[in-house]
């Protein structure tokens, strides 16, 4: 009981703090890869605080409601992860949050927002089956959906689920809004859709979506850490190397269109998952 009382505020606080720092580090590394110096590490916090204190303008009530729901769902997912709860439940709650973000964008009549929302729906369609397949693989190996059970497994999951980890990499690239799959919205300066999904979110509501994104980043990096849960060093190494690889991919690739994304992610993702699941079943 005491553990729960401590873990809930810890999860709520660590999510945005760690997510913001990761985001700041991401921007610095991206700048260095492009021969620039880049902003300070605290830049994402400045951005969010500034947005929070801007004049409130909102297209309609639903948009504000959806922004709050997105943050609520993302933070609940992270808190449940800290409580070492059921992995499937966490993924479903995260998916509900993602859909609220889309509904918020669809509630405005701006064509940029509408097209961005439709692209985001296609992205959700691409990565959700993959995340469920990865979770299935984890269950087949450890016999548990509960994170407590997965963390106490005696050997690193990566040795038995290497292909499923690659599949998780595809889902990560989409979810972290990295090229080549940053169709709906992107962190970078310009794209053909202005800011896509987030075009009509402004001021404090844009800040809310950013905080929600930080929670999601922490959740997904936590998901990665499950694959080498036998030691702290292994966990840190796998999370850091995966994130660095994501930044590298982001900087060396161009954006694909949604047909490429759906075709490539589903064909490669489902094949790799199937191979790994058959391997698990046979051995």
């Amino acid at each position: 009981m005491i553990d729960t009382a401590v873990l809930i505020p810890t999860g709520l606080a660590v999510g945005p703090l760690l997510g913001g720092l990761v985001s700041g580090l991401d921007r610095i590394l991206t700048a260095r890869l492009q021969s620039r110096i880049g902003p300070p590490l605290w830049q994402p916090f400045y951005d969010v605080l500034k947005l929070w204190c801007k004049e409130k303008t909102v297209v309609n009530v639903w948009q504000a409601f959806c922004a709050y729901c997105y943050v609520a769902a993302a933070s609940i997912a992270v808190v449940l992860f800290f409580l070492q709860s059921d992995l499937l439940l966490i993924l479903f709650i995260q998916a509900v949050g993602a859909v609220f973000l889309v509904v918020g964008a669809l509630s405005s009549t701006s064509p940029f927002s509408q097209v961005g929302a439709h692209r985001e729906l296609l992205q959700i369609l691409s990565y959700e089956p993959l995340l469920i397949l990865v979770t299935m693989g984890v269950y087949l190996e450890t016999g548990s959906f509960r994170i407590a059970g997965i963390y106490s497994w005696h050997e690193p999951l990566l040795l038995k689920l290497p292909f499923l980890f690659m599949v998780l990499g595809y889902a990560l690239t989409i979810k972290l809004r990295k090229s080549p799959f940053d169709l709906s919205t992107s962190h970078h300066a310009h794209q053909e859709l202005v800011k896509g999904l987030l075009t009509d979110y402004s001021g404090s509501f844009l800040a809310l979506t950013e905080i929600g994104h930080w929670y999601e980043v922490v959740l997904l990096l936590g998901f990665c850490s499950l694959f080498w849960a036998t030691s702290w060093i292994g966990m840190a190494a796998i999370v850091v190397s995966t994130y660095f690889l994501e930044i590298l991919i982001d900087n060396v690739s161009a954006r694909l269109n949604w047909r490429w994304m759906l075709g490539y992610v589903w064909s490669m993702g489902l094949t790799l998952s199937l191979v790994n699941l058959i391997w698990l079943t046979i051995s």
Partner: protein
Amino acid sequence: MIKWLIEKSRIHSPWLLHYDCGSCNGCDIEILACLTPVYDIERFGIINVGNPMHADLLLVTGTANHRNRKVLRNLFDQMPAPKIVVAIGACALSGGIFRQAYNVVGGVDKVIPVDVYVPGCPAKPEAVIDGVVLGLQKFSQQRGAENHHAARCDHCQF
């Protein structure tokens, strides 16, 4: 303490919107040069957003004319306060060499209130950055959502 933090975050995170009113593209190229690795204005937290609803700074180049002043006014109105307008180049300041043309209203300040004037034909990237930094100092003077909404221009009919 909170006020200080908010001011600091505003000064450290100005997102800019660039609008070309009909410039010869000389000033526009110089503005875009500021984003390249040579000048790298992301060091100061500046991002080129392309969306007025996310922007804090409006960088305007070129002369205001009877066609584009509605667009300029619309972009300005869509930006949530606090906001700063920086007029860049001779044309945006006064109409430049086009000032006597039949379709030209004049400088940008005939349509929207301008905070900083950056001269030059074209303005150098260093001058653009200098103008933006000068504009940022105004954030500490501008408190909340006032000023700009009251300061509508008399010449403007919108």
